[in-house]
């Protein structure tokens, strides 16, 4: 165990912030530290918060964390807030903290903003790794706010034990999720901005969507509750916190907790393998060999599958031995 990981386990927040940077940047030191901490992970409840841009995810996280700490003042809660990286510059403006004022300097709260850095799916490539660090450091729960989701940003489902999908009236002509299919990943549906006039129509739409997803209810099956909130003043948040608690109890009692944990770890492991694989082919298929084959593809002398096959056998397998 290094000094840095020891400091993290001892509750040193500066060390924690540093280690998160190393893990986020996937440095060798970060990888080693993560492996060193791995045994101390696995107990924390990971909660995903997703939904369209502007639905009120950050505002909801702000109240929800306050509410959790009101119920259980001894807890330490972490937030990972992901915002998109600009594809043009590689930079990002991470603005979720703006709506997290109430918890911004609470010593029981640790908030970390992450840029997506080109990853699709609403998260960054190393979001799970960062959540493992926070897990080892004793934060429970960890709340992950995704990038404002459009259609296919459902990766959070393979990373969180409980997923809150935030909807709000007035974001478009219709309830956003109806088009998006992120309803399917919801464990809890929050209808935020309940202070708006259109909220009744939005709830009707949500209810009919939900009814389609759950035509019949089996005994002991979890059916996502629909909860109205006003995240700007805290209305309805106690019910959301209660539902989060209930969902966690349901997961434990139904055996789904382990199942979700396994899915998370499988995603992590597969991701690492894919990355290794990618690094390997970049290393073993030399640039000039690639170019040679590629030139033939440009000339239409060689078809893509044949070209890939040739690069794989003539370059990759040969050079990697």
């Amino acid at each position, binding site marked *: 165990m290094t000094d840095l990981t020891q400091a993290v386990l001892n509750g040193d*927040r*500066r060390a924690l*912030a*540093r280690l*998160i*940077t190393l893990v986020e*940047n*996937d440095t060798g030191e970060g990888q080693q530290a993560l492996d060193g901490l791995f045994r101390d992970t696995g107990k924390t409840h990971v909660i995903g918060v997703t939904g369209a841009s502007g639905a009120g995810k950050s505002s909801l996280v702000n109240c929800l964390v306050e509410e959790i700490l009101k119920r259980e003042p001894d807890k330490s809660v972490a937030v990972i807030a992901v915002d998109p*990286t*600009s594809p*043009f*510059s*590689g*930079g*990002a*403006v*991470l*603005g979720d*903290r*703006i709506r997290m*004022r109430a918890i*911004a*300097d609470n010593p029981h709260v*640790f*908030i*970390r*903003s992450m*840029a997506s*850095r080109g990853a699709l799916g609403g998260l960054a490539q190393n979001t799970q790794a960062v959540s493992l660090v926070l897990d080892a450091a004793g934060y429970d729960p960890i709340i992950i706010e995704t990038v404002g989701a459009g259609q296919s940003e459902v990766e959070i489902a393979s990373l969180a034990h409980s997923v809150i999908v935030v909807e709000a009236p007035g974001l478009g002509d219709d309830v956003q999720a109806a088009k998006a299919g992120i309803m399917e990943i919801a464990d809890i549906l929050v209808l935020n901005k309940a202070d708006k006039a259109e909220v009744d129509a939005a709830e009707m739409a949500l209810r009919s969507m939900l009814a389609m997803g759950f035509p019949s209810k089996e005994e002991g099956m979890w059916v996502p509750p629909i909860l109205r909130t006003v995240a700007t003043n805290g209305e309805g948040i106690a019910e959301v916190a209660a539902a989060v608690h209930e969902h966690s109890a349901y997961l434990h009692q139904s055996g789904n907790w382990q199942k979700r944990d396994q899915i998370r770890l499988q995603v992590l492991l597969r991701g690492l393998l894919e990355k290794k694989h990618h690094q390997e082919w970049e290393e073993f298929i030399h640039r000039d060999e690639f170019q040679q084959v590629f030139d033939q593809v440009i000339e239409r002398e060689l078809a893509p599958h044949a070209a890939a096959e040739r690069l794989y056998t003539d370059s990759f397998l040969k050079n990697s031995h």
Partner: protein
Amino acid sequence: MEEKKIRVLVAKPGLDGHDRGAKIIARALRDAGMEVIYTGLRQTPEMVIQAALQEDVDVIGLSILSGAHMSLVPRILELKKRAKLDDVQVFLGGIIPEADAKVLLEEGVKAVYGPGTSTTQVVEDIRGLFGKA
């Protein structure tokens, strides 16, 4: 292998409600490839330092138009020291009289920018800290 991104906290401590300048700087830094944590209006010195610590930033950029810089900035520098964020640099933008700027630079602020400073200048100065001119 991922290149390390420069991380910058852009914060507006104090009570004035004008965040246009801060937003312009935030976008310019993003367009220069940096990751900017933008915390919005009315930040207390405690909030600024907590954010800088949790986000592990390299630079804190403060925008102060309220005239309260002589109380806010020394307080932030003091808290920064207490949090052991010695390697985090502080940049200040706003309407800062020259005499005040001189004092704040002596107390540890890295640079002070008046209205009309070009964003390119700020980008270059921050890059300069990391040897990427």
